[in-house]
């Protein structure tokens, strides 16, 4: 199996879907001749032509709205946000137009909104956000957050084939830092299915996105200390995989929830509620959260480092919980 970067996996996934299905097309700012700010769409204009790789004005609301219109017409638009931070400018079209059409009058709205999210590259408060929760809290949307190249490709394909609006969060820190095996044959990763990234028996660490790597590193550290950590990579946040989460909790009886996103109202809360409601008897300790604090993402490297969770912080929390 070829080894491939996270970025190339996304790119290849889109490419193959474009080849497979003529109703798939791309729209976004600077995605054509320039190939996108991070070059995810590099070469696509040349390959698929200006009718299917469409550079747009700086109009995020129109990007989403137009994607909805095209989707209603039977197309499968894949819209890029140059940075996921700018999704707030197209927010209304996503949560009110795209998310609710099927419920209201039954039309399909198959579209994907994708782009780079997350911190770790000193992008400052406006190029580093983790904005997934606004959408996880909006019924009618699906939200996916791949952590590996394999999942990046499998999920972009699943997202493009899905008949609902899907938000696809790429983590810009992983783009060129992560490489793994990506099969040559066509495959998808089902939306809504988590992955056990590492098996363990003492404690379950549930996370997603770039933090999967911090979790795995922490699990390594703890393994050396004799603590066996199971790492669950959610992969999809909406819908999320309750079964896999609860099965792991039943197995380890202790839960640590981790995300890069800020704390209050974050995904960890949702998971805590699920677990505390349905697996109360299985718990042998408090449900612990490790998250970013409740501030914007600061720019300067020492601040950003302090702000972000990492393997050390996770290991420390896990150690305490394991000893509970």
């Amino acid at each position, binding site marked *: 199996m070829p080894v491939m970067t996270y970025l190339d996996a996304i790119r290849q996934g889109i490419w193959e879907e474009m080849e497979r299905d003529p109703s798939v097309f791309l729209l976004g700012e600077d995605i054509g001749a320039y190939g996108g700010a991070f070059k995810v769409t590099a070469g696509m204009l040349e390959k698929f032509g200006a*009718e299917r790789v*469409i550079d747009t004005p700086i109009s995020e609301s129109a990007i989403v709205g137009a994607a909805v219109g095209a989707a209603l017409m039977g197309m499968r638009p894949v819209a890029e946000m140059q940075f996921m931070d700018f999704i707030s400018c197209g927010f209304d079209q996503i949560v009110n137009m795209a998310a609710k059409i099927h419920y*209201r009058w039954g039309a399909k709205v198959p579209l994907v909104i994708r782009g780079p999210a997350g911190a770790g590259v000193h992008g400052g408060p406006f190029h580093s956000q983790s904005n997934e929760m606004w959408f996880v809290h909006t019924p009618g949307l699906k939200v996916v957050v791949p952590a590996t190249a394999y999942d990046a490709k499998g999920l972009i394909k699943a997202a493009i084939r899905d008949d609902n609006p899907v938000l696809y969060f790429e983590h810009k820190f992983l783009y060129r830092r992560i490489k793994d095996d990506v099969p040559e044959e066509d495959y998808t990763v089902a939306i809504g299915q988590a992955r056990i990234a590492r098996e363990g028996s003492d404690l379950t660490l549930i996370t997603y996105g770039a933090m999967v790597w911090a979790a795995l590193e922490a699990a390594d550290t703890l393994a050396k200390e004799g603590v066996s950590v199971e790492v669950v990579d959610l992969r999809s946040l909406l819908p999320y995989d309750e079964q896999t989460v609860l099965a792991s909790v039943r197995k380890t009886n202790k839960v640590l929830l981790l995300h890069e996103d800020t704390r209050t109202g974050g995904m960890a809360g949702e998971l805590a509620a699920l677990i505390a409601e349905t697996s109360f008897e299985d718990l042998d300790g408090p449900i612990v959260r490790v998250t970013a604090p409740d501030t914007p993402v600061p720019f300067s490297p020492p601040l950003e480092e302090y702000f972000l969770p990492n393997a050390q912080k996770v290991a420390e929390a896990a150690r305490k919980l394991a000893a509970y």
Partner: protein
Amino acid sequence: MLYYLKLTRAAEERIERVLYRQGKIVGGVYVGRGQEAIAVGAAIQLVEGDVVLPSHRDFAAFVIRGFTLKEIFCNWMGRANGPTRGRDNTLHLGDMGRGVIPIISHLGDTCPVACGVAMALKQRGEGRVALVHFGEGTTSRGDVHEAMNWAAVMKLPVIFICNNNAYAYSTPTEKQYAVKDLAVRGAAYGMPGAKVDGNDVLAVYSAVAEAIRLARAGRGPSFLECRTFRMTGHSAHDMAEYVPDKLFAEWQEKDPIGLLERKLLSSRILTRERIHEIEKTIEKEIDDAVAFADSSPMPEGPTALEDAYCGPKCGWEKTSLVPSPSSVVRNN
């Protein structure tokens, strides 16, 4: 066209002044009294494959595109067999088979959607167009701007129709924009912009015809400002005390139905008798539809949980009223 004008007037009168007061329609009620000519003059020239995105006051667009009165009343009355299965209210009715995309309440949001529709239409290359209506108050929203600019840049077959009825809720135009004619906005985006007498259905017809001609010929979008007047409150609970009586009186003279009637009578295309017949047919159609809706079941509570997503469990095939996808376009 007189049929659709009168049908709109009568049906909306039933909604606003009868059903609403009887408590048979709950929630918001918005009608297009006085401005019916715009939707009629525009929608009537659409052909199969065109798509219309009406505003909240464009009742006729739905009927012309083939929505039946039964469907429409069932929806207003929140019935299980309405096109939204009771999930959404008023004229939030859509059906891609009949080329109708309804508004959401968030004003202006359909303008970018119209652009996306037009992108697909343009790619297909069959000369079809998208036609989107919005109020003059709505032009203040960023989405309208993004859409008009976008359509001009991409030379899309979209016709932007501003139903300028002089008020946005209680807000008069001078608090909404600082130009005499919104029509000038066309030039600011690089598309034709024209001011049209929105109460004259024939004037609307020919202005829209020209815009459609350009769009079908691949010459891009147009913007039409149709001037009219909202001859009622913003919604059924609004007495419109902020509108000077004088204005109502002035515009009453220019009523689009009266205008067309006088033309048809003086040119002897129609007789008074024929008009009365039309009116009677309409009353009958409305009576039937209301009776049908009134005897239709309300939705079952648990159906509220269905259909947030499109998937194998999707319940839309259960909706009984939706006819086969071909659009039924009646002309008059």
